[in-house]
């Protein structure tokens, strides 16, 4: 909250209603990635492929739309591609036992290679009116992207804190042994966490493609870093399955406000990434100090 006040003092245009709405719209895609990333990090994992999978799903979505497919059909195809990558990540990590950062680095390369190779590195334009119209619409006065992010947050919050699945997610990172001994199919749930990551990345592609009115193969490269940053800043720890979904909500807002505030102050986006890098290291540091104390 301190940075909100700071940016408001530095620049009056920061605190205007349109700008605050803008922060929400820009943060919506990040929220969709940060939510499953929280569960993945809680399970002592990591997903570096989310940005690339989002990019590939966006290309699938835009290409199908450009070829005259209906929006629901194109969306289902994009979600299927994202889900497939999520399942692949899960199987590589859980069944084969490849360390998550290497497994998802490999799938990052595959998704990025497919997206850039198939498009020749060019944007897919001419996606018709259906998606832009949906994206520009409002649900009970709330912009579409914010509504999607809010529904995603509330759903995941309910699932994590009110259902057995949520309990299992906490246990996978915290005490997997006990979970297995209790007869729970821990592997299946663990793969499910990564699958959710792929699915949500594809849902993020819906928002990003709508916002850009085109599919771009490398537009989302590095977005997973913002998501990881939001999760870590939000207080979820890499060890012992300690996670906090409301913290991730605040983390996403922190990153969104930081990027927007730096934008308003005309700081180039490259330095924004650098400052988020610093933020991650500081947050990790505070976390490790707290654990040792």
């Amino acid at each position: 909250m301190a940075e909100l006040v700071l940016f408001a003092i530095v620049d009056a245009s920061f605190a205007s209603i349109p700008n605050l709405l803008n922060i929400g719209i820009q943060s919506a895609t990040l929220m969709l990635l940060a939510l499953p990333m929280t569960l993945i990090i809680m399970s002592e994992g990591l997903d570096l492929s989310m940005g690339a999978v989002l990019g590939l799903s966006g290309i699938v979505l835009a290409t199908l739309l450009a070829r005259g497919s209906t929006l629901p059909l194109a969306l289902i195809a994009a979600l299927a591609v994202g889900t497939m990558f999520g399942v692949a990540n899960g199987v590589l990590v859980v069944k084969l036992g490849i360390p998550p950062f290497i497994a998802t680095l490999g799938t990052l390369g595959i998704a990025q290679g497919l997206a850039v190779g198939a498009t020749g590195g060019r944007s897919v334009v001419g996606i018709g009116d259906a998606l832009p119209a949906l994206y520009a619409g409002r649900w009970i006065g709330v912009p579409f992207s914010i509504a999607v992010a809010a529904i995603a947050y509330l759903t995941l919050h309910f699932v994590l804190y009110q259902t057995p699945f949520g309990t299992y997610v906490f246990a996978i990172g915290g005490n997997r042994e006990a979970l297995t001994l209790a007869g729970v199919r821990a592997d299946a749930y663990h793969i499910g966490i990564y699958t959710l990551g792929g699915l949500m990345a594809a849902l993020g592609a819906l928002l990003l493609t709508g916002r850009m009115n085109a599919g771009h193969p490398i537009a989302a490269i590095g977005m997973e870093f913002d998501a990881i940053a939001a999760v870590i800043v939000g207080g979820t720890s890499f060890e012992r399955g300690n996670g906090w979904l409301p913290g991730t909500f605040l983390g996403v807002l922190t990153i969104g406000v930081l990027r927007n505030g730096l934008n308003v102050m005309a700081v180039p986006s490259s330095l924004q990434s650098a400052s988020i890098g610093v933020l991650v290291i500081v947050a990790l540091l505070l976390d490790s100090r707290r654990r040792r104390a």
Partner: protein
Amino acid sequence: MRAEIVALGSRVASVLLLATALALLSDAFLTSNNLLNILRQASLTFLIASGVTLVILTAGLDLSIGANVALSACMAAVVMKSTGTIALGVATGLACGTAIGILNGLMVTLLRLPPFISTYGMLWMLHGTTYWYMSGETIYGFPPGFRALGSGYLLGIPVPVYLMAMCLAVGGVFVRYTTFGREIYAIGANKEAARLSGVPVRARLNLVYTLSGAMAGLAAIVYLARLNSAEADIGEPLMLPAIAAVLIGGTSLFGGVGSLSGTLVGALLLALVLNGMNLLNIHSNWQPLVTGVIVLLAATIDLISRRHAEARA
């Protein structure tokens, strides 16, 4: 030792097999020009991958190398352009790479952050700094004496190949025959046991990350000399191939197992694959796909051989 020789032999065999296949598929493959190009490409990959090999031997990881190469190359380019002195530019590049390595080491040893996430944070810090510093500019046109480091020939063999051979010889002796080197393996095999038997774990880890940074600095110089131009994005396609070369070269992700000669074979294999794609007219846009598959294959082979060894033990 015997198992190691078998493992290395099987990799050399796959290099030969791939080369034979390419020779049959394309007439352009078996020309001395093409073969020297492959060797040069493998040398560049090896320079970056050799430092990463040491880091992975300690069961760590350095994801910042590509971004390190980019920043070091850009710094070297700026200094060389503004002072007009080759030596100053080279020194700047090496110093920049080494300094980043030292920072990575301190994050792992002093702050005790997990290496994969701290070097990943470092990646984005370097990436942002480089883009901001270059602000879209390209610096090009360096003195011929400097460019020879990347694209020159000595006795008909590309200069980077000599650099690679030198690093392999020095590094190989260092890793295999000095106490330092053996301690690196000991840390990777069992950190706690190494500490209890008197290995200065923190000092060795610092050294390993520093070396990884320094090698990225050296690679940046050679890369810059080869391209004859510096842009903020030149490091982006380098990280995945370097890690792929280390893994396909038989260095285990879990530490304690592997060798620099293995990484050289890995770099050769990768250069052959990319060259083959080139000869078969497959666009370089598809490269990340191929490297990604190789990383996953190598990691899977690593796991299977590990389980195999555990089952026998």
